[in-house]
């Protein structure tokens, strides 16, 4: 029976103010464009990514991969490989002594290298370390593996059949995880609805799309200590997993982060064959080992976004108000559990946002298949059902004769008045919700009132505008390891070390958390130094996923800065004969609030503090436990409870051009996203994230990206046949900030841009419909699909 995450929902409701009480307009740094702290290193080529790292005596590793998607491993003969000159170590799955790992304790079903059975094509079964890449590859080719191929299942529908071959023998029905939630009474609500509609939508199998393939360098300074430098968005996962794998105490496992070339949720905050292999090869050979994946490895073996089949049934009143939604979700989890419990949980947890929803029922089932594993990707979980929900909303609007913007305005959750909380049917709590303002502003910016009257067809092209609204959880609340901590160390010359375990994978979190520290301390951003995460020195932090860094690591940073500031102000207060709370620090000056002429420069204060108590080390410590407290944790079994500390909201308007003869769809530059991230701490960074979040995973899903499979074989494992969105086709999207100042986020902030990953696909599909009258329900809307839909429509109209 599939194991499920069990978490107790807490009953208490607590409102707490986070961050400064300074009015926003008086911020020195936050809220204005903040140059990224690492931009210069990146633009000069000095920034080192994992594949750039070279260590003396380093060997190169290569992985031997299975030619079958499902097979028993009968025998592996590594003798020829071992004899090849230049080879220093060869390992197989057996070297790991039966160790299994997984994203959570209950789901440890995957081996570092397969030892008894392979479950997806190209799964690693052995690895070699040699003096150069060529020899390592040649040695891999010399490893002889005897397999017994097994019948496989390659999509959920095959997997669920009676008598289907089992991917995991102990998982009957190939069920990876399932959820059944029920809120209110959907049956009654449907019966009372003016209109009920049921449609099935499909989201495609997608790659993460980052351009930096996974890479890792591992060395053992001695037999009890392990050092890893890898492209990881969350170093604390490999930290724990490698500690378990090699039976080392955590104190002896050191993960040092280089710069990371994006993450997007899976693979880089999780493990791949290459990670374990390089560690074991380094152990066996006594030398550092480096493994760098190619895009081919990435596109064929690394984690993918779940393809999902979403059947959604919606009942509305005559005025188009939602009465009930019932969803059935089937997803393809691939060969191993990985993060599927979370991905599938997320499909339903926010269904009661961003629109008011009184009744909701969902049945979700994720199946194992002999495909590469599925896991998180930006817009994790929510995007699939939001796509279905927002496209169907337009279908319903059309049936009822209601304008799609009006439809959304009627259903949108109102922004709660200050001090008030909106609670959804499944007990999510909102202090702020800017979706209504967002849709109004987006519609206005795109000039909907004017454009909706314009003739859609011009020559052999048609133009249409589509809308969508979305939400995303911010500051994910999961369990103990989601808490995070920070330290702020004031050096005696006034410079500051900000020490965090949070990882910036390009979203700008380093910059914004440094800015928070500088803002709280009252000094400049240039005075703050942030180092790469190093688990030997930095406090635990789960890293970049779940839209948590700005909100949770931010809170820890603020608390650490406040702690350091308190110590300094105690010293300053003594000097001026006042109480510490009567003083503040701004613009690098400590001053008495009521008598600002009584002040002292920052540098002098720091020196005084350090020398007054000789050897006094000023280290502020802070933590955030918002990730697990406040409202209590969400319950995976029932779907009740907050999954986020707060929630962002997005409203998108996108125009498309459809070539009526070929079906090719292009986004035009008429593109607007209104985004409520509470308070944009670094507006240009929010802009890029929002625009990119909509374009790459959103428009990518809507128009371009799809793995085509044939019995476990990826037919398009390269970036020409699997199309990643490019610059020529990119819309010059305008971002509008909807400012709601959320009390649960640091300085009022909520996550930025996961919301737009959920709105882009439905906005594009709705735009195609507005332009041509056709509905494309299974993504991507590739030209051929649109072409046949247009043809079918023309033929229907002739009759």
């Amino acid at each position: 029976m599939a194991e499920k995450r069990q978490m107790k929902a807490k009953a208490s409701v607590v409102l707490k103010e986070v961050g400064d009480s300074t009015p926003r307009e008086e911020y020195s740094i936050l809220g204005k464009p903040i140059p990224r702290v690492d931009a210069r290193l990146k633009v000069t080529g000095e920034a080192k990514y994992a594949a750039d790292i070279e260590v003396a005596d380093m060997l190169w590793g290569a992985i031997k991969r299975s030619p079958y998607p499902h097979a028993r491993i009968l025998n592996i003969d590594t003798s020829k490989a071992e004899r090849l000159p230049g080879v220093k170590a060869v390992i197989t799955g057996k070297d790991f002594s039966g160790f299994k790992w997984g994203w959570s304790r209950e789901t440890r079903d995957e081996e570092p290298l397969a030892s008894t059975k392979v479950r997806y094509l190209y799964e690693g079964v052995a690895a070699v370390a040699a003096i150069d890449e060529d020899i390592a590859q040649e040695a891999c080719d010399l490893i002889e593996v005897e397999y017994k191929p097994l019948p496989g299942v390659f999509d959920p529908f095959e997997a669920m059949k009676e008598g289907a071959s089992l991917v995991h023998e102990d998982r009957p029905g190939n069920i990876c995880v399932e959820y059944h939630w029920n809120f209110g009474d959907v049956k009654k609500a449907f019966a009372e609805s003016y209109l009920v509609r049921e449609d099935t939508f499909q989201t495609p199998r997608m790659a993460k799309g980052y351009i930096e393939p996974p890479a890792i360098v591992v060395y053992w300074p001695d037999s009890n200590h392990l050092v890893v430098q890898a492209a990881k968005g969350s170093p604390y996962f490999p930290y724990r997993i490698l500690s378990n794998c090699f039976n080392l105490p955590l104190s002896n496992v050191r993960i040092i982060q280089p710069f990371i070339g994006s993450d997007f949720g899976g693979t880089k905050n999780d493990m791949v064959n290459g990670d374990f292999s390089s560690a074991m090869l380094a152990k066996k050979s006594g030398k550092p080992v480096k493994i760098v994946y190619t895009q081919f490895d990435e596109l064929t073996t690394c984690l993918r976004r779940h393809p999902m089949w979403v059947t959604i049934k919606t009942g509305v009143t005559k005025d188009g108000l939602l009465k009930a939604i019932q969803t059935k979700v089937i997803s393809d989890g691939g060969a191993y559990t990985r993060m599927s419990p979370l991905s599938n949980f997320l499909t339903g947890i926010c269904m009661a946002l961003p629109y008011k929803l009184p009744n909701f029922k969902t049945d979700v089932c994720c199946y194992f298949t002999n495909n590469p594993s599925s896991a998180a990707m930006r817009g994790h979980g929510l995007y699939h059902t939001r796509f279905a929900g927002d496209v169907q909303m337009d279908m319903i609007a059309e049936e009822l004769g209601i304008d799609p913007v009006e439809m959304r305005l009627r259903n949108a959750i109102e922004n709660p008045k200050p001090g008030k909380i909106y609670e959804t049917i499944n007990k999510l709590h909102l202090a702020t919700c800017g979706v209504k303002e967002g849709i109004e502003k987006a519609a206005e910016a795109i000039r909907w009132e004017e454009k909706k009257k314009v003739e859609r067809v011009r020559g052999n092209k048609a133009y249409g505008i589509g809308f969508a609204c979305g939400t995303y959880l911010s500051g994910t609340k999961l369990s103990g390891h989601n808490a995070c901590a920070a330290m702020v160390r004031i050096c005696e010359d006034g410079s500051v070390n900000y020490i965090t375990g949070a990882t910036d994978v390009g979203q700008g979190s380093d910059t914004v958390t440094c800015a928070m520290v500088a803002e709280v301390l009252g000094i400049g951003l240039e005075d703050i130094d942030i180092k790469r995460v190093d688990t030997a020195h930095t406090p635990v932090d789960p890293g970049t996923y779940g839209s948590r860094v700005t909100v949770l690591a931010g809170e820890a940073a603020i608390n650490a800065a406040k702690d350091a500031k308190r110590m300094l102000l105690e010293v300053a207060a003594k000097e001026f004969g006042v109480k510490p709370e009567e003083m503040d620090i701004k613009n690098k000056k400590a001053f008495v609030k009521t008598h600002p002429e009584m002040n002292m420069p920052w540098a002098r204060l720091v020196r005084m503090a350090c020398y007054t108590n000789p050897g006094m080390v000023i280290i502020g410590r802070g933590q955030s436990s918002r990730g697990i407290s406040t409202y209590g944790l969400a319950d995976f079994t029932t779907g009740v409870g907050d999954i986020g500390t707060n929630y962002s909201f997005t409203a998108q308007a996108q125009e498309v051009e459809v070539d009526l003869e070929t079906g090719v769809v292009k986004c035009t530059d008429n593109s607007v996203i209104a985004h409520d991230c509470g308070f944009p701490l670094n507006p240009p960074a929010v802009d890029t994230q929002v625009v990119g979040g909509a374009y790459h995973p959103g428009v990518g899903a809507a128009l371009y990206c799809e793995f085509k499979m044939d019995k476990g074989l990826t037919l398009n494992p390269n970036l020409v046949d699997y199309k990643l969105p490019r610059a020529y086709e990119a819309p010059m999207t305008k971002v509008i900030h909807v400012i709601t100042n959320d009390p649960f986020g640091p300085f009022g902030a909520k996550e930025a841009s996961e919301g737009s990953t959920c709105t882009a696909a439905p906005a594009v599909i709705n735009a195609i419909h507005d332009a041509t009258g056709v509905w494309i329900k299974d993504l991507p809307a590739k030209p051929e699909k649109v072409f046949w839909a247009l043809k079918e429509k023309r033929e229907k109209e002739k009759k």
Partner: protein
Amino acid sequence: MKGEPQELKLTVNGKVYELKVRPKTLLNDVLRKDLKLTGTKRGCLESTCGVCTVILDGKAVRSCSILAVQANGHDITTIEGLAKGDKLHPIQEAFVNHGAIECGFCIPGRVMMAKALLDENPNPTREEVRLAMQGVLCADSGYVKQIEAVEIAAEKMRGGE
């Protein structure tokens, strides 16, 4: 003889290098492994992503798609060759100041692409900027700020504000 190392003489960022490489060695490997110039990235290795882009005799090329031996006697500029000491090239400055850099992985290739464009065409149209940027993939930015940064740099380089 098969795989016999060939003499290679390259000028990279104004400096002359003499080395011997096996014929199948890619230019990307020589730059990164032999010359330790890791600013140029290694990406897809299948001529599609463009993060390996460098400038060869004034033209943008994919270093993963050229045998090192073919670059023999040629003049190469990589990202490391752009800044003059502490002073960034206007294109680099524009990318930094305009917030066009996120994870940064595509930036070296992209900046070199932009440099090749602006050296050849100091006043490109937006269409021409898009065509140049088409050759280097990004995964996260949506390309908007990058396109704008190139335009800002172009104006600065023409003597504008």
